[in-house]
């Protein structure tokens, strides 16, 4: 089997995950660590199955809703902010630092302030996801939009293209690799933001379940919710990666 074959690419990470689970089991058995601190993988699995219909499925649905709505708003919003600001040098210089500051601010920390304005509203969670994901998508797209090689732009001018035509024909495809970097980072931040929002705002969701289960010493359920949250994040990331491989076919 070749080292870069498709089968190796799929099997290798699965084997590593299985080895880590085995290591987890060994640590629990050897150290005899308390169930309330670190339950065995089997116990987490059992908690996942037993609570799936009762709580985890509902929490997952709630988190998926927040993640997807937030992400679907953040993507066009980040793209439009980047597209418009890329057209003006002054806008690039003034907006880029603001976007970087926003990107680095953990939005969940703003929840207490938001609560003062709007009270506890479920849409607050979506707002947190949007605020966390938009800057990273905008910053990466903007970086792609502003670094177009002069020769590529010259060809458009030689063919008599207008500025907007040149933007869609050259600037956007040229920026595709950076745009997808932003979209993939957005997937990671989207999961983190949704979980933080669940914890800060409450009212269901996997993050809320992790917090409640931990405080009730139902550590196996907390771990089960963490596993599902991780799977959600990975799934979103993989969907975007598959879309990238279909669009950026020339690399």
């Amino acid at each position, binding site marked *: 089997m070749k080292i870069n074959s498709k089968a190796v690419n799929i099997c290798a990470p699965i084997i590593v995950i299985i080895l880590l689970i085995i290591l987890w089991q060994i640590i629990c058995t050897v150290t005899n660590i308390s169930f309330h601190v670190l339950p065995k993988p089997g116990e987490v699995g059992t908690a996942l199955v037993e609570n799936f219909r009762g709580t985890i499925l509902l929490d997952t649905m709630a988190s998926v809703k927040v993640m997807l709505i937030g992400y679907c708003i953040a993507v066009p919003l980040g793209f439009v902010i980047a597209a418009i600001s890329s057209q003006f040098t002054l806008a690039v210089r003034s907006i880029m630092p603001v976007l970087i500051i926003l990107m680095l601010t953990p939005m969940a920390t703003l929840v207490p302030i938001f609560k003062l304005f709007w009270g506890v509203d479920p849409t607050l969670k979506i707002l947190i996801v949007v605020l966390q994901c938009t800057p990273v998508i905008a910053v990466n797209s903007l970086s792609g939009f502003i670094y177009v090689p002069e020769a590529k732009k*010259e060809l458009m*001018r030689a063919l008599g293209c207008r500025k907007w035509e040149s933007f869609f024909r*050259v600037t956007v495809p*040229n920026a595709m690799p950076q745009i997808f970097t932003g979209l993939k980072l957005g997937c990671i931040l989207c999961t983190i933001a949704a979980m933080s929002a669940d914890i800060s705002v409450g009212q269901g969701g996997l993050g809320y379940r992790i917090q409640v289960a931990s405080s009730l010493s139902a550590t196996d359920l907390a771990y089960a919710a963490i596993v599902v949250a991780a799977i959600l994040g990975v799934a979103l990331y993989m969907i975007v990666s598959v879309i990238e491989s279909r669009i950026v076919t*020339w690399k």
Partner: protein
Amino acid sequence: MEKSYISIENVSKVFQTRKHSIAALKDISMRFEKGEFVSIVGPSGCGKSTIIRMVDDIIKPTEGSITVDGFTYDNNVPLSSEQIQKLGFIFQIPNLYPWFTVKENVMLPLKIYGKDLKEYDERANSLLDGVGMLEYANAYPAEISGGMSQRIGVIRGMIHSPDILMMDEPYGALDESTRETLNMELLKIWKDTGTTIIFITHNVEEAVLLSERVYVMESHPGRVIADIKIDLGEERTLDLIGEERFGEYCTEIENLIGKIELAKIK
């Protein structure tokens, strides 16, 4: 005075950098008649590429105006979209878009000009075949060599059968034999189609072999110092290179360029 097919009149170009303004061209006037094959030679930095970039309206002249087939444009007036389709530009580098396949790159000007791509399919295939690239039509630029990319860049400039073809040292990166083959192919296209060709090169032999006229330029700032008619007849083949008159033309131009370089050193 009656205007030529292409007239560059009293054109100057100043490039502004953050700290300096660089005079690339100073009061240049050139004329090109319909169907002529004219080369522009000169040392690096003499503004050869800047001239054809201005003719193609890629960059604007600081002063002066350019007329192509009766249409005059300058710093304020752009070249009309109708006129621009008469022009073809071949870059020094292949300048292919990596997200398009080889054939899509070749067809790009037609797509932008809103032409029916199906009508040109046969022409595209024939041009690709002519440069030995038909079997790579669906490959991406990253999958072919630099020389192959350059050949694609050349035929992209010709796909829409332009009346005027501007070539900016198009074969600079190619090996000697490919270069000779493509030069002979270019002469054939020129004879068959009557295209007006402005050819930028730093290779004096290439300029003399291909052209009916050669403009010689000097640099800092770029100026025309000679306009030499190359009277070597219509039949241009590689055999001309050994002939005495061919050598005399080359020596005359090389001496002019050499004098410039020497003058700069002194």
